[in-house]
């Protein structure tokens, strides 16, 4: 079966995020005074062939931990849906 995975990688809480902070500082000038806590990250989308959803999820988790995120500074979250 084919599954579509979306993985989001973000800096862990407590790790300085100069990109997110810079974006947040620019927001009031655009009228977004109500937006706070901006954290920058990146997102990946890919397809996985697996026997079932649990197997696909396990592969995505492994990939997120081994390559997409650096566990020293980043956390990852993922969603796997049938493609």
């Amino acid at each position: 079966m084919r599954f579509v995975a979306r993985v989001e990688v973000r800096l862990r809480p407590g790790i300085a995020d100069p990109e997110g902070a810079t974006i947040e500082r620019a927001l009031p000038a655009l009228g977004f005074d109500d937006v706070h806590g901006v954290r920058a990250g990146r997102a990946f989308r890919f397809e996985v062939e697996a026997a079932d959803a649990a197997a696909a999820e396990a592969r995505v988790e492994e990939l997120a931990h081994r390559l997409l995120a650096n566990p020293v500074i980043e956390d990852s979250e993922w969603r796997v849906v049938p493609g």
Partner: protein
Amino acid sequence: MAGGARVTAARVGVVVFPGTNCEHDAVSALTSLGGQAELVWHTAERLEGFDAVVLPGGFAHGDYLRPGAIARFAPVMGAVSRFAAAGGPVVGICNGFQVLTEAGLLPGALQKNAALRFLCAPAALRVTSSRSVLTAGVPVGTELMVPINHFSGSYVCDAATLEELRAEDRIVLRYVENPNGSVDDIAAVANAAGNVVGLMPHPERAVSELLGSADGAVLLRALLASAAGERAA
């Protein structure tokens, strides 16, 4: 050594990934200091015959995903790990430092500079440990002027790791004035044994007064001496 034994130059392997761009500077600097240096392509699976390994600066695999994230899976990195585990001197400069942290050979990670600006400037450094292959014999407190050239040079690690680095005397160099937001002004760290060192500044670019500073030679000479010791051992 008695009996007219020939002293042979330390042989240093300089690892080249696609996108590495400081390899020739490294070879030239090491050679000018009496070493013997050779380029090693990232597909190499063996490092036999080398007395030390240098991972030079650049943008290995375009720095895609994160600096060093792809390079760490190169065949040569298995050989670098084995070389390091056997006690061989391994030094990662700039991008090479990033590769060593991604590979887990050094703790912590290199984050984007605090000001989100690419930094290219001479940096004053202070030697804070002589217990590494890059600073063996260099007195603690020695100040060196060595250029930095990076966008992701802000060293980060968790509090427990920082405590361990301090307690084990593994912070090798600190910036006199922190240019990039590195925790505890860290410019270079070593592994527990002191034979693997990563540093963001570029000693290979400071080996002649004509280049503005010859202070980098202090570090590279220490590395060559460590490598020669490795050969004798």
